[in-house]
């Protein structure tokens, strides 16, 4: 299993004003559900990404609550309408308090 938490995002570099662009995001994460037991019978504590958000120029695009049943390495694909050039800000919130961020700029022609 991978242990490194690494966010990955794909956003087109440019678009026409008002276009809906497809955004793909993936973060490597074990997403331990908290339901499983180790070989000694002790519960393995829950450790998941519990929230994912995407903002464009400060305006929220998507805000997702993740639950323990979501598989390892959660992947999201969604569309966003871009009215102007700007920056997408992606944020993942980990159970352990860590926050992972990534940004991508897009130019509207």
């Amino acid at each position: 299993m991978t242990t490194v938490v690494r966010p990955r995002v794909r956003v087109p570099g440019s678009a026409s004003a008002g276009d809906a662009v497809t955004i793909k995001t993936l973060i490597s994460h074990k997403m331990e559900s908290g339901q499983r037991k180790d070989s000694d019978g002790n519960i393995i504590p829950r450790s998941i990404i519990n929230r994912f958000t995407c903002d464009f120029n400060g305006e929220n695009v998507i805000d997702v609550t993740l639950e323990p049943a979501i598989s390892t390495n959660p992947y999201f694909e969604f569309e966003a309408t871009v009215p102007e050039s700007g920056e997408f800000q992606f944020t993942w919130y980990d159970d352990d308090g860590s926050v992972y961020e990534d940004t991508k700029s897009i130019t509207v022609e």
Partner: protein
Amino acid sequence: MMKKVLTVSSALLMSTVPALARGPDDNTLVVNGEIEMVTKTEAPAHLDGVLPEIISGWHYRSEETQQLQSDDFENPSMIFVDDAEEAWNTVEGSSGNSCASCHEDAAESMVGVSATYPKWNEEAGQVYTLQNQVNACRTERMGAEPWAYDAGPALNMEALIASHSRGMPVNVAIDGPAAETWEQGREIYYTRYGQLELACSNCHENNNGNHIRADHLSQGHINGFPTYRLRNAALIGTQSRFRGCIRDTRAETFATGSPELVALELYVRSRGNGLSVEGPAVRN
């Protein structure tokens, strides 16, 4: 365990009933819009009269699974390849070397390497798998501990090296000094094992395209290994896959890295001579 890549936009489509899989389909595999894969081709000479055509396991999987492999962003193996890239540049062991110290940029130095493995290693006097070779580098040139066979770091590295041969034809040598090992592998391939008395050939040669209970049998080529298996949500190595098959015949299996499985890997790899290297592929 059910594994499905969750996409917000396609969440509503999830209830669609998939078409019942039958034989191999006629789809075409192009990765990242640029690497054109040969997924069906003429069987190598040593399979004359055995298989009319060799077909990649990719053709036996559902459209959804196939699609995951056509884009590196959606191919979950690439997470592990990223990890291996870090390892590639990390100095380990007593001689102060990383992989990159000798081999520099993997994207250049490793092109075509995976396509010829397993192959004869003159110095060692035996057939080496890619993982054997990586460990030889680690112990002899880096002074580092060898990686456990088919364990995370070794598989990640194998996947990274394979990824730089994608699209190139598998071309392992079966003659010369490797011939003896190849023969041994061939014998294992046709030997019935376990309480169910099944040889590799019973499923993958005589019954590919059919179902064995819920599993859709392919020709069993390993040009896509290491492979991300959705059911495991992890990379799976060739020899671990062999063990899974042999276990399912209710037999005692060989250990990963054992001479038997190295021989079998060489033989099975040679059955796919001519197919493109797909590793790291995606299968269910």
